[in-house]
């Protein structure tokens, strides 16, 4: 079912745009160009962070960290190998992408750990960044329970990523 979702969505939006007499192809091209500009702007971050993350893995620190995180992660059934992703996801989107890619490459993209990492990446956001951008722009200093509630959502996401991966791919 998911096989047809993406092609149907692409065709659907093209037809909808044509019905509204919009120049669908032109819109695709301008949007695509904007996307590439965005990508170029994040390349330096991707290079720096993947360097740091690859060093972290090669040094053995990731194995040590997973080892220390194992009791807590095992309790919730989350693979301890994803500990580093869980730690960095709320702080930086590019770093999380770097860590997640490295996890998928190390353990296999269709492995349980690789899939869990992919679901975690796809279903959570950069919490600290979102709060600082939205509240910074609106001049909010007293954030009250926002961070707590957002981190609750993140933790649910990490836990559910493990659960759903097991549910759909066991």
């Amino acid at each position, binding site marked *: 079912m998911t096989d047809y979702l993406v092609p149907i969505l692409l065709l659907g939006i093209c037809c909808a745009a044509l019905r509204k007499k919009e120049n669908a192809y032109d819109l695709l091209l301008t949007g695509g160009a904007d996307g590439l500009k965005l990508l170029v702007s994040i390349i330096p971050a991707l290079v720096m962070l993947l360097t740091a993350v690859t060093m972290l893995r*090669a040094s053995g620190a990731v194995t040590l960290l997973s080892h220390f995180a194992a009791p807590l992660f095992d309790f919730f059934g989350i693979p301890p190998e994803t500990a580093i992703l869980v730690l960095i996801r709320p702080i930086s989107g590019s770093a999380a992408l770097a860590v997640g890619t490295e996890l998928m490459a190390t353990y296999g993209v269709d492995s349980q750990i690789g899939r869990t990492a992919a679901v975690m990446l796809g279903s959570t956001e950069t919490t600290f960044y979102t709060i600082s951008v939205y509240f910074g722009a609106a001049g909010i200093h007293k954030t009250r329970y926002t961070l707590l509630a957002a981190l609750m959502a993140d933790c649910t996401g990490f836990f*559910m990523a493990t659960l759903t991966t097991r549910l759909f791919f066991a």
Partner: protein
Amino acid sequence: MVMSWVFAGILSISLLSAMYLGNGSALAAAVPKGAQAGITLAISLAGSICLWSGAGKLMEHCGLTHFLSKLLRPLLHRVFPDTKKDPLLASALSGNICANFLGLGNAATPMGIQATKRLTDPKHPNFATDQMCRLIVLNTASIQLIPSNVAAVRVSLGCTTPFDILPAVWLTSLSAAAIGLLGAFLLGKVWRHD
């Protein structure tokens, strides 16, 4: 500034554990390898980002965003009661949620900021209101139809069915949003202003 500390932190942890475990040569080899991997990742993302940014532009113009906002209206009234008397807030909020849903991060942020500004309490302009917290929670739960970046990374690593994680992603982000909102509702009851 946070990222400078994160970067320095990662480097010092790497150095210390490499010295402790005797992984010096692997650490040195990781430096050029990691930098190369950054470029490889960027290239493997390029096609997908280009395609989906184009598709996103099309979704904005073809009326899909408008249609989704209409569908969202009843839910919006419940979670953000202020939208009943503030149509501008309603359109900024539904725009923000729809843009996130369609993976248009660039379009979502300005509308989210606009909604946050309209949600400010005139009596306490520095305080986060309950509805603001709910907006942040909805944004951090990242309810997204097609997580295209993750799919692109999976394809680049040899996955033949990059979209097979979709049901798991949807279920996960919906539960995260539900628990986050529930938590925000409960915390809002006990955590009053000042």
